[in-house]
Structure formats: C-alpha cells, structure tokens
C-alpha cells in the first residue's frame, strides 16, 4: 500500500466509528455483478527503488544525441534555478488558486506572467495559459469568431506555412462549430504567405486570418502587410508567434497600423524542457476590448479588507465553472506549473537575456546552414530571411538521411516531405544557442559521408 498511511489498528478503529465490519462494506451500494473482473493485466507494484532503476534504463535508451530538430519545440538553455524553484512543493502541489488568500504565491506569479506576456507581445491582456500552442490556436479561432460580430461566415484564412500539426489540432477543435479554415498558399520562391493569393478573398466575408511569425519554414512573414490587409477589411487577426523570438522581432501588438487582435502560440521556448512534447503551455494575449471573449483564467490585482493589495481570479463569468454551457471555453485545468517555470525563466533572462538567446540561436543557425549548404546537393529551399530554422533541399530521400544519421546519434531535423510532398526531399533544420561547433562538425561530416 504505497502512500497509504493507515495501520491495521487505525483501520479497525475507523471501521468501528463508521459502524461497518470491513472496508468492502463501504462499497455495498455498488451492484455486485459489476465487481467481477480481473486486473491481471496490470503488473505488480514496484518500490521506488525498482521503478527508479527502470526509468534510469528507459532514459538511457533515448539519451545522448546531437539534436537539430525544431519544428515547434526548441532546445534552449534553462537556468537550473527555474525548475528548482518551480517544483518547490508549494507551487508543485497546489491546486488552481480558488482560495485566493491561501494562494497569493501562485496568483501573484500569474499576474506577473500576464504582465510579462503582454509586454513581450505588446498587447493589452493575457490569460494565465491554455494547453499548448496548437490548441491555443484553436481557442483563438473560436474567440475571433465570437469577437467579430460583424462577420457571419465563420471563415478563417490560414496560411499553408502554419505548422501542420497546429492546423490539424485547431481543426479538431473548431470543426464542430461551423467554422471553415481556408488555406492560403505560400510563395514557392520566398516561402512567405503569398500576398497576391489574398486578392481572391477581397470581397468575401472573412471572419479572421491567421498570421505566423516566423512561419513553419522558419521564414519571416510580411506581418505588417498581412495585418494591414486584414485591418482594412475588419478581419480579426490571430498572430501565432514564437514568444522567445518576439524579444527581437516586431511583436504582434505593433503589426500593421493597430496591431493584431489576438496573439497566441507555444510557450515552450520560455523555459520548458523538450520532454517529448509536453507539458508545454499555450499562451494567449488580446486587445482590452475583447478580453471578455478570452478563454482561460485571468488574474487581477485588487485590495483586501484592510486595503492591502492582493491577487485573485477575475472575469470568472467567462468560465465553465460559472457559465457552464455558455462559457468562452471548456478549459478548466490549464498548464499552471509550466507558467510558473516560464515566469521564473523570463524574470531570470529579462528582455535582454531573451534577446541574446534568440540572437545567438539565429547566429548559430547561420553557421550551421552555411556549413551544410557547402555540401554538394544541399541547398536552402526559400530565398527569404529566416529565423533560426531553415528548409533544406536534399539530393536523396529525407527519411533515409534521418535514419542513417540517427544511427550516428545525429538527429538531423524534421522531415518536412511528409507534410509538403510537393517540396520534394526537404529537411527542416534548427539551431539554438546550445548548438556547439563540435555538434555541427559531426553533422556535416556524417551528412557529407552519406551523400558522397
């Protein structure tokens, strides 16, 4: 009985208090015919020592490669203090801060998080997180549809340069609500959303438009032009951005003339380890005027009975526990612990540290790409500027390159050919500030050998 403190004597005492003979008596309201089954398929319990041995072994199986994969999850340095503080029991094992007086630690931290995110995005308001970047986009689409009362169509323009997993997840989330996602092509030359492709929608009722920065190819979009186009047509703009990179690139709040309406994305680059894809956290920011359409928890600063400042959940009338079927979203549990870490991480790095991290990632990437494209048959697919991620064309099948290099513990990148067969043999490679010269040398050498 791991984790159960009861002694036999205490159990007897408790049963006597209750007035039953056995624990099984407490289950006497359950129909007897439902309790006949076997759990043989579940292994027997292990001690912590045994499970620790097992997990060390499993961990070693997957460990120790040079990783050049990005594609939505980025291996950035995380200060040791971040997770040492974030996993303190008081943060780690607290519930959602419903009892505000007993949760001022988490509440103040979340208020600080909201403040940092609005600063980073240059937006008015931020919520306290959604599940991940992809589902946040789904929620942002729903929010845009709710917010744009002038439009009836529920049509949302989505560039094909959006991460395909985001497209899929968002589609799963919005498809049952009569929303239509309309693909906008990418310029085959530049890798940017094709501005001229928008002409086709000039006179259509479009509810919202998604704009990525950078897009899935690493390419920098003409965010001002795209936003301006949408602004002129009262189309809600939903920015999907890498928040780390917003420390050096123009943030959504400054796009076009008035800025994007909603900004969302994946918070992972802000202090969350790769850990097989989760838990990460989705963030969402918006303009003040549509804050009541925002899904998720929001923390506000207020005063207590003595006039002392304090923090509390606010605008709860948007949420499912108050509004039930009329809520802005069904989300309840969000990604609190991840946000705790991200807040500490952002405080630790500050604007300057984030900018240096983004900058070094990009600089490393230029080195990597220039080394790789020296190899015969390897070339960049798109002509436009990128940020720390590039699509490369390969002379042989991407799959084959990935498998062979993995044998040498080089994880060469993301197989873009799966999602974009029209691009041929293409590989999405990524760099962060953690990239080492030694890692690049090995990558180049192994790839050269394979291709020669």
């Amino acid at each position, binding site marked *: *009985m791991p*984790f*159960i403190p009861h002694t036999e004597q205490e159990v007897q005492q*408790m049963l006597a*208090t*209750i007035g039953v003979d056995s*624990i099984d008596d*407490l289950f006497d309201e359950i129909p007897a015919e439902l309790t006949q*089954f076997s759990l043989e398929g579940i292994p027997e*319990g*292990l001690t*912590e020592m045994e*499970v620790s041995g*097992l997990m*060390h072994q499993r*961990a070693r199986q*997957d460990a120790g*490669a040079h990783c050049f*994969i990005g*594609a939505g999850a980025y291996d950035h340095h995380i*200060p040791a*203090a971040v*997770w040492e*503080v974030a996993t303190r*029991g008081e*943060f780690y094992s607290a*519930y959602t801060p419903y009892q505000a007086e007993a*949760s001022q630690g*988490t509440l103040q931290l979340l208020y600080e998080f909201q403040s940092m995110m609005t*600063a980073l995005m240059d937006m*008015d308001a931020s919520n306290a997180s959604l*599940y991940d970047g992809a589902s946040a986009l789904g929620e942002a689409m729903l929010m845009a549809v709710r917010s744009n009362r002038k439009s009836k169509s529920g049509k949302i323009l989505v560039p094909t340069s959006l991460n395909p997993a985001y497209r899929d997840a968002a589609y*799963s*989330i919005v498809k049952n609500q009569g929303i239509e996602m309309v693909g906008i092509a990418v310029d085959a030359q530049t890798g940017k959303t094709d501005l001229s492709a928008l002409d086709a929608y000039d006179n259509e009722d479009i509810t919202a438009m998604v704009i990525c920065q950078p897009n899935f190819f690493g390419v920098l979009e003409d965010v001002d032009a795209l936003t301006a186009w949408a602004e002129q047509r009262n189309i809600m703009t939903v920015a999907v951005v890498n928040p780390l990179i*917003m420390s*050096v690139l*123009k943030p959504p709040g*400054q796009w076009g003339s008035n800025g994007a309406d909603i900004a969302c994305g994946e918070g992972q680059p802000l202090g969350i380890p790769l850990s*097989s*894809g*989760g*838990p990460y956290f989705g963030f969402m920011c918006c303009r003040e005027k549509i804050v009541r359409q925002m899904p998720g928890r929001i*923390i*506000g600063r*207020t005063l*207590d*009975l003595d006039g002392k400042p304090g923090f509390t959940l606010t605008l709860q009338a948007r949420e*499912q526990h108050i509004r039930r079927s009329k809520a802005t979203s*069904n989300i309840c*549990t969000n990604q*609190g*612990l*991840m946000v705790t870490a991200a807040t500490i991480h952002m*405080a*630790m790095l*500050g604007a300057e540290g984030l*900018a240096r991290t983004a900058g*070094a990632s990009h600089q490393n990437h*230029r080195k990597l790409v220039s080394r790789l494209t020296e190899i015969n048959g390897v070339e960049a697919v798109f002509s436009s*500027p990128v940020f720390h991620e590039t699509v490369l064309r390969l002379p042989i099948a991407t799959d084959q390159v990935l498998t062979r290099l993995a044998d040498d513990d080089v994880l060469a990148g993301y197989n873009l050919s799966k999602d974009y067969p029209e691009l041929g043999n293409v590989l999405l490679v990524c760099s962060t500030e953690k990239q080492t010269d030694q890692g690049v040398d090995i990558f180049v050498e192994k790839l050269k050998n394979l291709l020669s």
Partner: protein
Amino acid sequence: MLIFEQSSSGRRALAQSPAKKAALDDLPADVLRKDPPAMPEVSELQVVRHYTRLSQKNFSIDTNFYPLGSCTMKYNPRACNSLVMLPGLVDRHPHAPDSHSQGFLSCMFELQEILKHVTGMKQVSLSPMAGAQGEFAGVAMIRAYHDAKGDNERREIIVPDAAHGTNPASAVMCGFKIREIPTKNDGDIDIEALKEVLGPQTAGIMLTNPSTVGVFERRIQEIARLVHEAGGLLYYDGANLNAILGKVRPGDMGFDVIHMNLHKTFSTPHGGGGPGAGPVGVSERLVPFLPVPMVDFDGDKYRFLTKQERPETIGRLSAFAGNASILLRAYIYARMLGREGMTRVAEYSTLNANYMLKKMQLAGFQPAYPERRATHEFIITLKKQAKELGINAMDFAKRLLDYGVHAPTTYFPLLVPECFLIEPTETESIDALDYFIESMIKIQEEAETQSDMVKGAPHTLPVRRLDDVKAARELDIAWKGCDN
C-alpha cells in the same frame, strides 16, 4: 512587491544568457523590434528570492491538508518528478526518430495498457491534456460515431444538474445542445426525467460516477440500458475515478467512453492550476475515432500511430503527443501502485471519507445525503449555520485557512445549499482527518460566540478577503509601469 518593482535598468542575470549579443544584420529592419519589452531587470538572486518567498504564500499538499472535493489532492510522489527530469527523458525531442524513442514509447504503451485494464475499456488514447480536453475528445467521438452512421440528427447531450461545468461546456464545443436532468433527494439522478428527455435526438449522456454529490449512482446499469436503447452513448467523467479504482470499472457499467484525470487519480501534480492529463478510453464501437497520436507495439518496436494509420480519428488535439511528461509521471505512479495498490486507492480513500462523514455527523454537522454511503468524498451542508448564525460555507472555508487547513470545495455542486464537498484522499492519516474535524467543531463554536471574527477570517494569511468586485470592475490584469 512585484518582480517588476525590483527592477533596475541594465541589471540582469549574467550567467544565464550568451555573453555576446548577435548582430541580426541579415534581417530586414522592418521585421525587427524597436524597443525592448518592459520586463523585469533583476539579478539571479533576486529572482530566486522573490519566487521562493512567493511560494511560501501558497497552501499546498506538501504543506497542508487539502480536502478539496472533486480534486483528489493526494500526495504527489516526488520520485515521479525527479525521474522524469533524467537526461534522456527531459531532453528528448518530440520528433526524435523511433531509434531514439523506444524508452519513452514503451512507457506510454504500458500506460495505455494499464489504464485500459483498470477502466475496463477497449482502447486508450493518452493525448488529451486535461479532463476538459478529454471530455471534448470523448464527446467529439460520440459525434463522429453518429455521423459515421449517418445519424446526423443526434444533437443533444444530456447532463445532470450536478455535473461539473466542463461537461456542458465541452459538449457545446462539439456542437451539441444540452439537456439538463435533475438529481433526486437521495443523490441519484431522476430516471423518470431521463426517460423523458431521451429520444432520437439524443447523442449521449455525460455522467460522473460516483457523481459530483459524492454518492454512487446505483441504477447505472438501468441508465445504460435506457440510453443505449434510445440510440445514445454514455460518457464517463473520470474526475471521481479515485473512488472506484480497481473496485468497479466504467467499461463494465456500460460506458462507451471515459476520460481520466491523471492529475487526480494518478497523482500527477496540480501545479497551481495544471498541467493535467486526460486520457480517454473507449468501448469497441468508438475505437476507430480515438484521438491521435497513440502508441503501438508490434512485439519488437514501439511507434506512434497517427492519422495515416487511423483515418477515422477525431484528429490530433495538440501539436505533439499531449502532456507527455505528465503521462510519464502517471506511469511511474501506476507502476509503484501496481495491481493491488490501485484497488487500495479506492478502498482507503473511501474509508477516510466515510470516517470523516460519520465523525462530522456525530459532531452535529449535516450531511447532504444522510442515508447514503460516502464514496471518496461527501457533502456537508451548512445551511443551518447560514440561516441561524449568519455564517455561511464561505466563512467556514476562510476560517479553516487560519487553522492551516485548505478549505473543501464550496458551492459546488450548486444544487446543495451552502455546500462543503470534502475529499480527504487515501494518503492522509487519521490524525489529519481528526484535526480537520476538531477545527470544524471549533469554528462552529466561534460561529456561535464570535461570529464577526469568523466573518472576517482569514486573519493569519498574507491577505484578508479580497475585493472580487473591484477586481472585475477596475480591471488590473497586467503591470503597467511604475506610474500606475
């Protein structure tokens, strides 16, 4: 003091970012940011000190008894945290090739299997990231099922009035209309009312069992028969799975789809609001629709299954594979529990709840369902205290904080007036339970003799009661600089 207010222009944690600033001279000027964001400029020590001190202002399982009903605030084994931080796990990229994923994938596959067995379902997908997303996935599968059969008129989901808010909200997100049915005075749902709403428009029903009022729905088999006969499917909200783990299985009760809250039943951390993990399990007929990715094992290698292999899936719900390292934590916990440990979770959480219920009843507190067994949780109604002493459930809740105990869930489910939903969990000792009961008895005395003091509680926490109205009216949700 906010971390922003500790800023000094130009200060930073120098060990934490590259020593040199990159030029970015390959990028066009108009994509670049002009002014840096107004973020804190502080030292590493300031950060550590600030957030360490903030943390101390929280109640948490690690510091307090936390009998928050419906939330299963049980001990979160620290090993689950430290082991997922091992190199090889913490730094595995979600797109790592299969050759570098067998360790991780084997854990995921085995977790799928364990959850399958303990719920009695046919197959499990781990990808939903919390209970509500599990609900969404489940209801979406119900819709996909009817749609696949061309049964397009089934657009109603039935939920009891006591249901958690996420149930109707999730159903609406799947494009359904909600039909609410009442709960009877004995805590079971009103089957006559159910019969009335069932029909060709019925897509399904969402139930929690034990229900949110803390009792086991005794006529579950009859309900299942009725709903199935009407052509609907049954959804099981697994928030209360702790009560029955290993004792009775949703699959055997007749449910077609279930989500589990691993951050409740499988003890992954609540983290001040998340992350969770809400895997879904299904009966045979819903198997094709499970969300992707799932993990498959061919006897030799583990691999992800995606839309390609599972064309009827409702799709993916996240960019990668859900809250992977929360799933890993749940896997570690499940392996430590093992087969016998699972059953004991239900047994001892139920023992604790019934013990508390009985002792509180003896102390004069009024159970909402006095004729019923408690499950892993139970409800006390403080309506007498509210009426006679002017001390309501909120007052009791706030005063409990002064006693160092986190308040139970208050005002949920709403149908019980002045309600205290109390869930001790199996990991708490009799001493903690007794201390809670003693505290309640003392507060009752205080309510009788010094009610203003109780109404003014808490008195010993970092803040007293907060002005929620002001918070919503004069919205201050982001720091706006020193001038504000």
